């Protein structure tokens, strides 16, 4: 899920990393909690670059990976306001470069028989998979760091993107990092 507020035009592509910071927020797995997070971001004018939510191994909790735009608010204030939400149990900051970040893209690309080989070559190099082949199009998937997905998405633009869906990033701290 991608969510963006209060700015114009796509910001997802080719943005310098320092503007963004990843927070891993553990929340109680209760109805309405995501709405509270979203409302907080909206009310305080914090911009979200990406948001991914899923249950954890403990069914009482969910984990939210949220990429915040630090141009809209200082990180400290975002964390402190999040921490005030009663349903937020824990917030972990993942410093850029100290975390493994992954995103999944599924995309349908215009590619007739004459261009399939070329497309598959690019896909192999990027480490993606062919999910399905149609008469004039192919459906592909790619998992990787958000930057590599951006690059591949741009490359696919030369073929013609029919439909595209990205998950928003999930992240874990590098092994052997403190904290």
């Amino acid at each position: 899920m991608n969510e963006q507020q209060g700015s114009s035009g796509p910001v997802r592509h080719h943005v310098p990393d320092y503007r963004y910071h990843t927070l891993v927020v553990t929340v109680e797995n209760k109805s309405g909690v995501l709405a509270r997070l979203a409302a907080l971001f909206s009310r305080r004018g914090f911009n979200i670059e990406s948001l991914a939510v899923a249950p954890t191994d403990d069914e009482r909790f969910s984990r939210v990976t949220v990429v915040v735009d630090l141009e809209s608010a200082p990180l400290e204030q975002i964390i402190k306001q999040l921490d005030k939400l009663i349903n937020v149990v824990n917030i972990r900051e993942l410093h850029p470069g100290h975390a493994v970040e992954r995103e999944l893209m599924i995309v349908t690309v215009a590619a007739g028989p004459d261009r399939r080989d070329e497309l598959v070559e690019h896909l192999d190099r990027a480490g993606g998979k062919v999910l399905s082949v149609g008469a004039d199009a192919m459906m592909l998937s790619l998992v990787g760091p958000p930057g590599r997905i951006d690059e591949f998405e741009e490359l696919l633009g030369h073929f013609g993107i029919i439909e595209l869906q990205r998950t928003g990033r999930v992240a874990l701290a590098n092994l052997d990092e403190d904290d």
Partner: protein
Amino acid sequence: MKMDGGQALIRALELEGVDVMFGLPGGAILPVYDPIIDSSIRHVLVRHEQGAGHMAEGYAHATGRPGVAMVTSGPGATNIVTPLCDAHLDSVPMVVVTGQVPYAAIGTDAFQECDTTGITQSVTKHNFLVSKAQDIPRTIKEAFHIATTGRPGPVLVDIPKDIVDPDNPRSALEWTDDVEMDLPGYNPRTEVDSAAVAEAADLIRAAERPVLYVGGGILKARAAEALRELAELTGIHVVTTLMARGAFPDSHDLCLGMPGMHGNFTAVTAMQESDLLIALGARFDDRVTGRLDGFAQGARIIHVDIDAAELGKVRRPDVAILGDCRVAIEALVSDLTSGGVGGADRDAWRSRVSGWQERFPLSYEQAGAGDELKPQMVIERLRDATPDDTIVASGVGQHQMWASQYWSFEHPYTWINSGGLGTMGFSIPAAIGAKAGCPDKMVWAVDGDGCFQMTAQELVTATVEKIPIKVALLNNSYLGMVRQWQEMFYDERYSEVFLSKDVPDYKGWAESMGCVAMRVDSPEEVDAAIAKANEVDDRPVVIDFRVTATENVYPMVPAGASNSELVVPPSQQDQRR
């Protein structure tokens, strides 16, 4: 023990020590009103749900205990949104119970259904939608815990009808006395970091121009006595913000009064010229700081707050102390007692401060013979004719500023107002709530005519429920504060601010609501009217003070200006260069 949800809800409120609640029944909350008949809790039936919310706030302000209100779903819930927001901004502990349509009907646009938890999410500290009767006791316990601990605030509990309706099997539950709270994400911190305290104490020792900048958090932390000890130990002057009036006695030598947009010259200027601001439970509100980049530029900042998000939100502190204000002040006092208060030379500073006090006292032009009544004079006479532990509840506007300026607050919890949200109509219901919580104290509402017309119907509540508050209505026939801004900043182009001199007939209106009512037109009548009002103890009193319409509140920092650009009253303007 077998119970139904409605009985369990009332039982849970009783266990929290609730002695009075304010509310108005309706369809969805009806089943909960039945067990109220058999409860020890006093229920005050209001005339509008907004009144219930402000009464709960007034009760909480005056007693320190959480205020409780109960209303029905839909319009009942939306009518109490304003008090929730008011309590949220002023950190008032309050628990509001709202009825909701049956759980299975939620989302179907049923009669009197609204998304109460969605609507109130951003104006509460937290809210709950209870889905099962068995969860009611635990949720009520959690609601009171959240409302009263950490930074206090309003908590709303939304109760679907089916889980409290004894005719519905979903309302059955097994009551147990020892329910455990389940709040894994809520751990308010009260203890303070001793290293930060030591650092703060060193700054205090070295400061030559320190000021204690005291906010409403002092009152929430029950820290007025500790504050006095700190001020007297160090000899540091104190300013009390609008939310902290009464936290330090106005008559004390070290008290400089209220800072901010309509603060007095010395309080505002001392902060501007300070080299160390010790902010205690204050949040650097724009009405206090004026233009931020022009605020107290030479001051280092010690900021004590129980809400981590306030530390550094507006102004970056040099020393941040997270925790309870009373605990922090006591730690500071202990450090400064054992380590000494330091030898900084503050003589020059003290003489500057007293120089400002002499040259720029609060002042207004007295009425001459035959002139109209001055609102400030009414406040002064009321102040002098009432016990010094009188509780004053104010509305919002010019009268609020005059009450804060010209009253002399000697005790904590004697001043109740809507600071953050600025809710017109606050005073009458807040005064009723305060009086319900403190029946032995005299409670005066200081109100304006614009405010009065917003919530006056609660005087019916006061009469019927025998809650004898007194109302000093400063009637200038205008939305006075807006009129003042139009005079000063809109070239005297008055747009939609004139109400009416004679409509409504306030005396007749108040009498029709069961009050003793008087009308005062001239300065000579003021004292007698107040004396008569003070003798009435069995019903509310309203005095319609017909005051001059053109009086302005001074001093004033124009919106967007720096505090150094404070405008003093015309009589003092020659002294400013």
